[in-house]
């Protein structure tokens, strides 16, 4: 039989050769496929949770910031003697007027006595109103039953400028502040609610000053009017920003530990054997690409990992907070390689593209090579104090981080020419998503220098390598994390 005939017949026979696989093969395949789906779902849920957390904290910051502005404004602008303001209802007028002006105690008393209805002085109300109108603003609204915070039915609020000397000295600033105050009144539901709450409990007083409309829905339309007649004596400039940052606890974050590569995401114990093994392209137009390696890929050994950054922490409640910032991350691992060769090699290490490398390390166990990875990342983490005491708070944190690969010298394995290592930056995913969790003890809560320390784990959620490289590599990091909080007076 001729050679070709033998091969031809053999091929025919082999093409028809079929074997029935056992049922558990499909079960395992299906399980693996479902696992991937589950991972996507987990990732999606985590993203949603992250967004929710972000949204909630944003809302929290916005609302608490408004309240703080009120307090801040009152302290900044109201003379101590004038902090006791009254809010009166004029029985004759169809419009409720909430007068918030830096009246002296005598004035207040005089107004109280002139009132026909109930005379109430609510310090909370005066505080909250004073945020929007400080000491010289009157807020008018239709004479409707005042609603509570929940039903939010404050429909028209008119801010009036008083003849207070403070208002006449800085007209421009005052006008701007009036706009802000009316916007705040219109937009900030919680503030509106509080205004309304207070209205129900306070008296309404007629006011003889100029009026600036700050009607809820019409506030935008009325802006121009307000701008053309800047009258209220408010000075909001810079206050909001200052308050927001004053609520954040800034800290230097650092961590030192070991990093390695896993074959599976979220895995603490999956093997790191052959994790750097790349898979040759099964689709190769030239007919090449199928190889039998002489030198198998090296196992990964864990290497040092370091992290440093700046974090801002915002308290959500007594025991919980969120933090974010920016961090530099260094991870590494070591592999064993053979000799270095300055030679060009063509590779087919992806499904679609062939690539050329100019230098390679032969496979083998001659020397150690360290793969370095440098990232910059933005974490978003939630902290929760596990114990209740303040003596030694134990804080559990969990979060996610989005990172960008700045540089790497990591080698890739390919079965070409019996097993080689080469560099190809294009093989790596530039973006990395991590999940992190840890525990830490916080020290010096009552002293000037506050710091924390504890263990932390960080697991890669997406592959280090691009999908087409078929290498399941997930970075894993375990270490000790510490934070030193900047000393700040208003840290609570």
């Amino acid at each position, binding site marked *: *039989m*001729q*050679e070709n005939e*033998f*091969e031809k*017949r*053999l*091929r025919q*026979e*082999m093409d*028809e*050769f*079929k*074997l*029935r*696989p*056992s049922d558990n*093969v*499909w079960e*395992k*395949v*299906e399980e*693996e*496929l479902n696992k*991937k*789906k589950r991972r996507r779902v987990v990732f999606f849920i985590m993203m949603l949770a992250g967004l929710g957390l972000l949204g909630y904290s944003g809302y929290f910051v916005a609302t608490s910031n408004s309240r703080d502005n009120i307090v801040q404004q009152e302290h900044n602008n109201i003379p101590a003697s004038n902090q006791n303001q009254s809010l009166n209802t004029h029985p004759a007028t169809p419009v409720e007027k909430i007068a918030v002006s830096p009246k002296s105690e005598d004035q207040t008393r005089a107004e109280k006595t002139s009132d026909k209805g109930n005379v109430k002085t609510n310090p909370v109300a005066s505080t909250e109103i004073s945020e929007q109108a400080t000491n010289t603003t009157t807020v008018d609204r239709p004479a409707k039953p005042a609603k509570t915070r929940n039903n939010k039915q404050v429909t028209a609020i008119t801010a009036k400028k008083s003849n207070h000397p403070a208002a006449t000295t800085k007209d421009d600033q005052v006008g701007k502040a009036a706009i802000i105050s009316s916007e705040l009144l219109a937009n900030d539901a919680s503030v509106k609610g509080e205004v309304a709450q207070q209205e129900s409990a306070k008296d309404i007083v007629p006011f003889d000053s100029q009026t600036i409309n700050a009607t809820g829905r019409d506030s935008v339309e009325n802006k121009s009017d307000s701008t053309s007649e800047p009258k209220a004596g408010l000075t909001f400039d810079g206050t909001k920003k200052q308050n927001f940052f004053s609520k954040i606890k800034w800290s230097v974050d650092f961590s030192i530990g070991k990093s390695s590569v896993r074959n599976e995401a979220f895995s603490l114990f999956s093997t790191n054997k*052959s994790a750097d*093994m790349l*898979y*040759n*392209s*099964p*689709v*190769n137009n*030239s*007919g*090449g*690409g*199928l*190889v*039998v*390696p*002489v030198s*198998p890929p090296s196992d990964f050994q864990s290497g040092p990992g370091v992290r440093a950054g700046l974090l801002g922490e915002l308290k959500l409640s007594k025991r919980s907070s969120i933090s974010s910032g920016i961090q530099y991350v260094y991870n590494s691992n070591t592999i064993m390689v053979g000799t270095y060769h300055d030679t060009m090699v063509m590779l087919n290490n992806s*499904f*679609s593209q062939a690539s050329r490398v100019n230098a390679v390390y032969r496979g083998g166990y001659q020397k150690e090579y360290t793969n370095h990875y440098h990232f910059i990342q933005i974490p978003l983490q939630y902290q929760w104090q596990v114990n209740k005491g303040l003596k030694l708070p134990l804080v559990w944190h969990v979060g996610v981080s989005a990172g960008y690969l700045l540089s790497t010298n990591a080698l890739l394995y390919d*079965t*070409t*020419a*019996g097993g080689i290592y080469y560099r190809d930056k294009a093989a790596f995913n530039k973006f990395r998503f991590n999940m992190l969790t840890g525990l830490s003890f916080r020290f010096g809560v009552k002293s000037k220098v506050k710091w924390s320390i504890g263990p932390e784990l960080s697991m890669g959620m997406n592959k280090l390598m691009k*999908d*087409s490289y*078929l290498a399941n590599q997930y970075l894993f990091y375990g270490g000790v994390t510490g934070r030193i909080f900047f000393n700040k007076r208003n840290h609570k």
Partner: protein
Amino acid sequence: MEHQKLVKDCLKGKSQAQRELYELFAQTMLGVCYRYTRSVRDAEDVLQEGFIKVFHHLKQYKQEGELGAWIRRIMVNTALNYLKRNRRYQEEMFFTEEYLHPVTDDDPVIRLQAKELADLIRQLPQGYQVIFNLHAVEGFTHVEIGEMLGISDGTSRSQYSRARNLLITWIENSVEKKNSSYAGK
């Protein structure tokens, strides 16, 4: 056309389509995996790993060529990677130029069934087996195999020749044995 729809459905994540695709090719592909390994269990491991890769990378199937051929290539590569990962296979993956045997003009009649043939191929030393499979069954040239394995095409040719001669001898023996058993009956 039929395959295209199947692939599209698989890409949409439809479990039924995935199962269908598996059923369509699993038996043929197990035949491929079987030739590269020493046991059915190993062959099934390769099949499983191969199909996971198929489904994970199905979007990269260009729909230009035959789907079966694309899957087959993945199976062959998975099998080769499987061999190198397992030490018991690795130790046998040894290529030398020690044996130089010319291609003979022997004329053995292949009267064996596919399964028996596959079993004989599997009995070849691992290095021979790989080259024999790559050349005789998958259709790669010796130059291509030489480039792939980092060996000379002459080495590939000689190894193949050795494997082929060995296989022909075994086939003849098997056929003789078969004939004598039939005669005995």
